[in-house]
């Protein structure tokens, strides 16, 4: 039995709502058939595996609050992901994403979104991306953004914004109007000026 299956079995037995599957050599969700049926699960950690595809069925896990897919080989995310009603923390950093699915901004309660170290740019963002009004931390470091759309001003709850290591030439003044912003990381870009609104 694979390492992953063992962990899942144990979790089912103990009725543990949290699933620790980090660095278990998982290549595909198909290795974990029971996973999609665990309707009580609140956290799944699959960091440091080799997953390439995320099945749309993942949206069945209606109780899921935290999904950690950091450091895998994921190239695209299913549209159904944004329909998960309780998902608050989504970490898809260090993957191979070059776009985000349609309707990605539809998450109901997403608070922390980690997209660090992918191949995303401003064109990768779907039209409704900035409707994520519940977002309080957005990690876009190590990507290929050359600009940030001014719609970023709609993220009224944003406290943390990481734009480190992109290709930004300027940043929109709307960032200066974000009422809750406490952390702004803009290192390693191509900025020559900053908007006065940041003051």
């Amino acid at each position, binding site marked *: 039995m694979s390492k992953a299956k063992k962990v899942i079995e144990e979790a089912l037995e103990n009725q543990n709502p949290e699933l620790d599957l980090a660095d278990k050599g998982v290549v595909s969700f198909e290795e974990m058939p029971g996973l999609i049926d665990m309707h009580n699960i609140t956290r799944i950690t699959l*960091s*440091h595996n080799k997953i390439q595809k995320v099945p749309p069925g993942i949206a069945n896990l209606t109780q899921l609050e935290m999904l*950690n897919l950091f450091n895998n080989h994921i190239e695209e995310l299913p549209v159904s992901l944004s329909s998960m009603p309780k998902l608050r923390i989504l970490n898809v950093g260090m993957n191979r994403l070059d776009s985000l699915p349609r309707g990605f901004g539809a998450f109901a309660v997403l608070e*922390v979104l980690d997209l660090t170290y992918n191949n995303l740019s401003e064109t990768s963002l779907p039209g409704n991306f900035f409707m994520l009004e519940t977002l309080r931390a957005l990690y876009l470091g190590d990507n290929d953004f050359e600009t940030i759309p001014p719609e970023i001003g709609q993220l009224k709850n944003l406290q943390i914004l990481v734009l480190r290591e992109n290709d930004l030439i300027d940043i929109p003044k709307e960032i200066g109007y974000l009422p809750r912003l406490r952390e702004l990381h803009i290192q390693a870009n191509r900025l020559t000026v900053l908007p006065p609104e940041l003051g």
Partner: protein
Amino acid sequence: MPGVTMSFSNMSCSRCGDGFDPHDKIVNSQGELWHPQCFVCSQCFRPFPDGLFYEFEGRKYCEHDFQVLFAPCCGKCGEFVIGRVIKAMSASWHPACFCCAVCNKELADRGFVRNRNRALCHECNAADKAVLSGRHICFKCHGVIDDKPLRFRGEVYHGYHFNCTACGVELNSDARELKHRSGYTANEMNELYCLRCHDKMGIPICGACRRPIEERVVTALGKHWHVEHFVCAKCEKPFLGHRHYERKGLAYCETHYHQLFGNLCFVCNQVIGGDVFTALNKAWCVHHFACSFCDQKMTQKTKFYECDLKPACKKCYEKFPSEFRRRLRKAYDNTPKKSTSA
């Protein structure tokens, strides 16, 4: 002179007693006759200048000698006192020179009182006595204040000299001086109010309904409130004696204070109730503090790295691509070091 027949033969000089020759000049003064050489000053034996003489005990003197011999010297200016002499205090005085030792008013027609070897007018004497007896002197009328003085702007007065600034009633010693509020430091700006008006002004006004507070007062946030009007700024429920929490001039109940201002956990986004773990400009519930990349729980003893101000456990850090680690290391070396706290 009626009834006296003057005949030349029986006239005689009042001084020497001799008769008069027919050719002699005769000085006639007040019915008496003298030889001119006999009508002289009894002291210097010279005729009287301008015919002016002074008489004393049957003798006549010229002005100068009379003054030298008999006129008193003024106790104040040292000059002879001619005319009205004031004799007092074992000395003589010109009327204009005999003055109250305190207020310098002329005492001649006022009367005086001897007070510790000074001549004082009656008022100053009374004042002097009053000071000694402990009673106050009114600053306005200078009379003795028999009962309690009204203190006002640093002086004492009879209360009845003033009227209430608000209602105009005549005041007594119970009246209150209202010190002006901040902005006016000088005493001169103070006003007097009768006790009633003053107490009416002391009534606090509720910060919520702006009406006077007659019963129990709540004092908070630098204002006064009706008990039922002192409410949480968020849920508007009255505190009714329960604890309130203040922030930026507003009061909140415990729930809403923590909701609005409490430390929120980075993972669960709730107000941290128990112990707080602070690091990297964030806070965690102690039991939620975990690696941001593999969700492995950590304690304050766990060694962790920092990436974008998120904690990374050693295992995850070592799984980062080497070039990424290199860049992180470089950035870390370049930033000023700050200590984290739990």
